[in-house]
């Protein structure tokens, strides 16, 4: 199997928003970061993958199985999902979650789950309604990691967590992908997190895929350049992908290969690339 997830020409129409002819693959053994602003369609894409929303058009395969086939229910044993919030009923405790999950997942690993509960210092008998957001997300992550998944689908899984815990969880995700059969699709607002663990970046805007690229290639391909307004106008238009104007200079995101070596460029980050591409050009 080449791809853990294959999304082919998928569209979903809402009244005022649509996922527009989306094609996106998550190669097996890789980590793909899904980036986009609020309302760009990240969560909708994840819901479409898991069959929680019905697509209007296109095809989605997860771990080689069409997500509309009956077999997909069985395949979900191999998928760990963390949604943007942890959706457990209020009265549920980590202890009862174990009882529920061991009757839900065929390959539920009780010891592994208890290990995560201990590692994350979650109170075993405290009801979910008394959990902080960080604790709720830790519980959801513990569940996703405790049934020997081959694919993790994470929607804003690290938001609401402090930097130390985020680091710890990113390490766990990194550990997960050491097995070359394991893959992750992760969406996050915290782009620096994605930059740390992703092999590929998919950028979505207004329900459309703007780019899907290897992270390292993006960092090689793009650069930042700071120029006076006059010098900026000498840059070839096709090389400029985004512009930010201040009173003293123009900062532009450029394609390194398309500009002359006489221009001094600066190293850029995924966050810069996404922000510049997202905002487009400002008036000069």
């Amino acid at each position, binding site marked *: 199997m080449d791809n853990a997830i294959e999304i082919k020409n998928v569209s979903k129409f809402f009244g005022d928003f649509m996922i527009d002819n989306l094609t996106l693959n998550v190669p097996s053994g890789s980590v793909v970061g899904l980036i986009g602003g609020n309302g760009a369609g990240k969560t909708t894409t994840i*819901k479409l993958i898991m069959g*929680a929303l019905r697509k209007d058009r296109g095809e989605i395969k997860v771990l080689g199985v069409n997500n509309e086939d009956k077999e997909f229910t069985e395949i979900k044993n191999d998928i760990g999902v963390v949604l943007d919030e942890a*959706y457990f*009923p209020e009265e549920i405790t980590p202890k009862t979650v174990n009882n529920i999950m061991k009757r839900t997942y065929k390959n539920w690993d009780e010891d592994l789950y208890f290990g995560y509960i201990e590692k994350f210092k979650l109170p075993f008998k405290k009801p979910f309604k008394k959990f902080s957001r960080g604790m709720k997300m830790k519980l959801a992550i513990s569940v996703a990691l405790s049934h020997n998944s081959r694919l993790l689908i994470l929607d804003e899984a690290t938001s609401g967590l402090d930097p130390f815990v985020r680091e710890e969880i990113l390490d766990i995700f990194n550990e997960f992908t050491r097995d070359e059969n394991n893959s992750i699709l992760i969406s996050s607002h915290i782009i620096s997190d994605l930059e740390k663990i992703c092999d590929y970046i998919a950028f979505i805007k207004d329900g459309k895929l703007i780019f899907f690229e290897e992270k390292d290639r993006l960092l090689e391909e793009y650069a930042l350049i700071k120029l006076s307004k006059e010098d900026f106008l000498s840059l070839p238009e096709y090389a400029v992908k985004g512009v930010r104007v201040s009173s003293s200079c123009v900062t532009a995101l450029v394609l390194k290969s398309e500009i002359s070596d006489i221009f001094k460029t600066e190293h850029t980050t995924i966050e810069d690339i996404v922000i510049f591409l997202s905002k487009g050009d400002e008036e000069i």
Partner: protein
Amino acid sequence: MRGLILKDSFCIIRQLKFVIVFILVFSAIPNFPGATFAVFYSVILSFTSMAYDEQSKWDSFAITMPYSVSDIVKSKYVFGIICICIASVFSIIIQILSLLYTKKTIGIDIFYTTGFSLVYALIFQALLLPMIFKMGVAKGRIVFLVCFFAVMGLLGGVSEHISSIVKNLYYNTFNILSISFIVMIVLNILSYMISLKAYESRNIL
């Protein structure tokens, strides 16, 4: 599906204590069909579990687990059946204890009355669950309460006649109960199919 039913059970534990008190209180009221009332009231337990699901957006999470949409819908029917059956057994025990306490004879009519309550509670559930799946818990609960008090008001009004009706129909009671049982099964199958369609047509998240 066992995981879903277990989750529902954990959710309604608090409500269950309330229902038990309810059954005890109403069973103690003379000339009031408390046991019947209790069995009917147990229908609310599956609705309560659905209210918890809606509040916590559990369905969004459940669909990411190895459950199909039909598993999720079916689990609510099975959970409802379990609650109503447990309430019926509990109701019989309370009635027997009550008769023993008042030194009255324990007759077969207890079992018939509870049997009818069980069957009609399940018919009631079959009629109401598609509404909940279609309209959500908030609107569905209003419909439930209106129907519940209408039925109970009717039963309360004719409570004195119920036992005499049962006695008069004594020879036919078993047949009526059997027919009601078959109607209940057919209605529940139809109800499940409608609920499944209603749930599938909704965007779950």
